[in-house]
C-alpha cells in the first residue's frame, strides 16, 4: 500500500476516533446531573408514559432544569437540554 494512502487511511481513522472521543468528552461535559429528587406522596401510575410531564428552566445560568411528573420532581443540571429548549425561543 502506498505510503500516501496508508497515511490518508490512518488520518481518516484518526479523525474518526478523534471525533468519537470529542463527542464522548462533550457528552460527559453535558451529561445531566441529578441534583435533587423529591416524591412526597404515593401516586398511581407514575410510570405511565402518558402522564403529563412538566419541565421548566429554573436557572439557565446554572443549567438547572426541574422536571415533574406524577408527584415526582427532579432537579437536574442539564445545560444541553437548556440549550436545545432555548432554540425554540428563537423561532
Amino acid at each position, binding site marked *: 500500500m502506498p505510503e500516501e494512502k496508508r497515511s490518508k487511511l490512518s488520518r481518516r481513522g484518526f479523525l474518526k476516533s478523534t471525533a468519537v472521543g470529542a463527542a464522548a468528552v462533550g457528552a460527559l461535559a453535558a451529561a445531566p446531573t441529578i441534583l435533587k429528587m*423529591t*416524591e412526597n406522596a404515593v401516586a398511581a401510575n407514575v410510570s405511565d408514559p402518558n402522564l403529563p410531564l*412538566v419541565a421548566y428552566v429554573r436557572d439557565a445560568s446554572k443549567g438547572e432544569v426541574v422536571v*415533574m411528573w406524577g*408527584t415526582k*420532581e427532579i432537579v437536574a443540571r442539564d445545560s444541553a437540554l437548556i440549550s436545545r429548549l432555548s432554540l425554540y425561543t428563537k423561532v
Partner: protein
Amino acid sequence: MSSHREAPEISKDPVADNTDLYAFVDPNDATKVTILSNFIPLEEPAGGPNFFQFGDDVLYEIMIDNNGDGVEDVTYQLRFMTTRQNPDTFLYNVGPIGSLTDAAWNIRQKYSVTRVVGPRRTGSSTLLASDLPSPPVRIGPRSTPSYEALVSAALAAGTIGDRKFFAGQRDEGFYVDLGSIFDLGTLRPFQNFHLIDTPAAPGEDDTKGYNVHTIAMQVPKTDLSASGAELDDPEDPTSVIGIWTSASRRKAMVRETGGRIVQSGPWVQVSRLGNPLINEVLAPVGKKDYWNSQHPKADSQFVQYYETPELQVLLPILYPGVFPNLAGITSPRADLVAILLTGVPAGLIGGWSTFTGAVQSDQLRLNLAIDPTVTDFDSVVADSAARLGILGGDLAGFPNGRRPFDDTVDIELRVVAGAVFNLVSPGYTPDAAAGALADRVPEPLNEVAYLEEFPYLSHPNEGYEHSHD
C-alpha cells in the same frame, strides 16, 4: 380573623385557605379527641349555582406531634373527588335532595381518609376509608328540605370502627367583630378611648350567617399519643400533643386553552394553622405567605414576632393613656413564646401544662390528661368563665386545645395586652384594661347553637334564608 384570608396569596385561594382549627377531649367520650379543621372563609350560603365545596386538587392534612420535636408523628390526609351525574344541566340539583343517593343531586363530592405514621409525606400510610360521602350544601327548603337527615347519613357512613369522620358544610362557629377590628384596631365597647373616638357601642358578630367547610374527626386518644396508652397525669409532658393542619397543592399547574388544567409534581404546602390569629396578627404582611409555606419545626425563625408583637406597640398608640404599663415593656414577651410556641410548663398553674419541650413550633397543644369541663357547648354564655378558657380558670379551654365556643379573640387580645405577663415577669403589673379587653359583647356567643354532639359545629346557614345582620 382567626386565619381567614390572612395572607395575600392564600386569600385568593379560598378552598385551600385554612380558617380555624379546634381540638378538644370529646365531651361525650373522654377517651377520644375531636379535631375540626375549617376551610373556605366567609362562605356565602347563597353561592349558587356552583356552590362551595372542597378542592379535588388540594391535599388536606391534620398533623399530630406527640413527642415535642415539632415534627408530625401521625397525619390524617383527606382527598376529595367530585362527580357530576348530569353534565348537561347548569343546576347543582334538579329536584329536592332526599338522600345521599338521590338522582336529583347532580354535583356530589366524596372523600378518602389516609392515616400516616411518621413524617406525613414519607411515613407508613394506611387507607382508612374511601368513597365517604360529603353531604350537599344547604340550599333551601325546596332543594334540601331534610338537611339534618342528610348529615346524619354522612355521619353514619363516616363512622369507621371507633373513629368518626365528617367533611362538609357547617355554620361558621368563630365569632368576631371583624369590621371593627380592622378599622384601625377599634374595639367597639372601648372605642370611646380610641385615638379617633366615638361613643362606646356593643360589638357585632361579623361572621354571622356565613358558612365554612369542615373536616371533622373523632379518634381515640390512643391513636394520637406517643405511648398509645391513655394518659392521666396532666403535668407529664407526654400527656400533651401538638396539632396543626394544612392544605397543599401540586407544584406545577398548566392551563391549556379549552379549559384543561394539568397539575404535576410534589405537594407544596400553601396554608397552615395551629394556634388562632398567629399568621393573621403576629406575622407581618411580607412574611405571611412564607409563613404558610413553612413547617412548624422551623418556627424559631419567627420568634421575634412573638417576642415583640406589633400589636403590643399599637395598643398604647391607638388607646392613649390606657396601656401605660404595656407601653413600658422592653423585655421579650416570654409569656407569648411559652403560650404559643412551646406550651406552658408545669408548675405555673397547678395540675395544668401544655409544655411539649424546648422546640418552638406553632401547634395547638392539647393535654390529653385533662377531662372536659363543658359537656353542652351551647350552654356557654357570655359571662361564663369557660368562654375565656384558661384566663377564666377553665383548664380544659384554650390554650389547652380549643373548643368552638372559646373566645380566642378576647383571650389573645388580653394576653398580648399583658394580662399574664406578670407570670414570667413578677414585677410587672398588668394595665387595668388588659384583663377587660373584648371585641364585642358576645351574647349569644354564636348566632346559631353549637351542636351537642359530633361534629359540634352547627348545621350550615341555608342559601334561601340567612342573615348577616
